[in-house]
């Protein structure tokens, strides 16, 4: 399988505290990879490295290489803004721009990217993104309402639509359902399954049932180390490492 990301010996520190220890991982194209582990294992730090979200964090330092389609994302040739367009991010708390309408929330990325698009083009892309995020039918008659007027689950799908609008290759999601109720969670999970195959998706979750349901591959992190990564069917029926087994059976610690 083709790899989108190849991570080689990634270590990182916040000040003196080492958060990631020589992570080596490949992320396969057009599949869902979950990163799971207990709190503080470094999973969020890891996923945020993939689109250089830590660039501005004081005291952050890293070693190793992160290759996106073979190019080191820290090379001078790579513009972080362009990188983040190719590698979109969805956060734990839905964060639509509060003063913008539903429509503008999705269109904003297209406008900010400086591409000259006709109104019809923008409308087409907004509709397509909302449809892919499984939100179009619910909002098509309320496109001018504020984004913040939607329910939490709808807001999260709006954020996914916003990320999809700029046509990224990779979608990173940092606990995208942990602020949502079970029905909204089910919708987002279904959406992730729909999008896999067209996008490369990496999801951070501490909900291992969710990792099981949505992923093709699962990586288990513990205290900054990648303990094991394998097909989800293997991880959840017969993991290779005893620590993975203890974590997923709830015998951990």
């Amino acid at each position: 399988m083709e790899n989108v990301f190849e991570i080689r010996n990634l270590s990182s520190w916040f000040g003196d505290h080492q958060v990631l220890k020589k992570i080596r991982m490949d992320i396969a194209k057009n599949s869902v990879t979950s990163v799971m582990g207990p709190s503080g294992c470094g999973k969020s730090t890891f996923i945020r490295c993939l689109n250089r979200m830590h660039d501005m964090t004081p005291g952050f330092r890293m070693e190793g290489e992160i290759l996106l389609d073979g190019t080191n994302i820290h090379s001078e040739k790579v513009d972080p803004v362009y990188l983040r367009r190719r590698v979109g991010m969805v956060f734990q708390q839905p964060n639509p721009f509060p003063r913008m309408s539903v429509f503008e929330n999705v269109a904003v990325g297209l406008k900010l990217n400086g591409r000259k698009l006709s109104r019809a083009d923008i409308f087409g892309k907004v509709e397509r993104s909302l449809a892919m995020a499984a939100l179009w039918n619910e909002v098509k008659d309320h496109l001018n309402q504020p984004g913040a007027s939607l329910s939490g689950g709808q807001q999260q799908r709006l954020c996914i639509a916003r990320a999809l609008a700029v046509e990224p290759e990779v979608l990173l999601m940092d606990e995208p359902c942990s602020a949502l109720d079970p029905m909204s969670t089910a919708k987002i999970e279904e959406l992730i399954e729909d999008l896999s195959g067209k996008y490369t998706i990496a999801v951070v979750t501490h909900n291992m049932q969710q990792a099981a349901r949505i992923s093709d591959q699962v990586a288990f992190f513990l205290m900054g180390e990648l303990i094991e990564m394998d097909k989800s069917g293997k991880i959840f029926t017969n993991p290779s490492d005893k620590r993975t087994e203890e974590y997923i059976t709830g015998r951990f610690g």
Partner: protein
Amino acid sequence: MKKHYSEQLAGLREQVLRMGGLVEQMNRKVIQALVERNAAILAEVRSMETQVNQLHIEIDEACIELIALRQPAAVDLRFIAAAMKINTDMERIGDQAINIVERAEVLLSVPTLKPLIDIPRMADIAQEMLKASLDAFVTGDDELAYRTILRDDEVDQLKDQVFRELLTFMMSDPTTIPRAMELILVSRHLERIGDHATNICEDVIFMVKGKDVRHQGPLA
């Protein structure tokens, strides 16, 4: 790529059906071979067992993966649990068909003892039970499952009848004993197939109603 949950459940149902179709065919063909004294059909039945064994493994794998990855609940959980148990019963039915192949191979190498009447009747009923049990599984028809369980008595009675009849052959002419014994074994295997079909029906009732009707004597 990973498919949606409902597609995975539908896929499992389809696998169970495919296996059910195979063991039904094995069952039908082996009796046909015995009645028509056609050894070529016996070889065909033997070759089908490989596919059945393969599906036996694949179905269990699919069930275990569904349980591990999807945390099925309620009717989905009962469906998957039923599929696993039905899987075992179907594999055993395939084994019984092979047991009959072995008896038939011996019987085809010696002169006919008597025209076969009750054994094909037993096979027909066992076959109908098997087909009905799988139909009940696919359509979630617990009424059909109940009715089918009741038919197991017919198979049992025929088995006793076959035994009594062959006993008179053996008592009047001991040279018939080897052939009669083979036929008695065939009827025993057919009776077991009826038992497995009954088990499948019980699993279907559990799947549909969530009610365990096993080991409770004649059904109310």
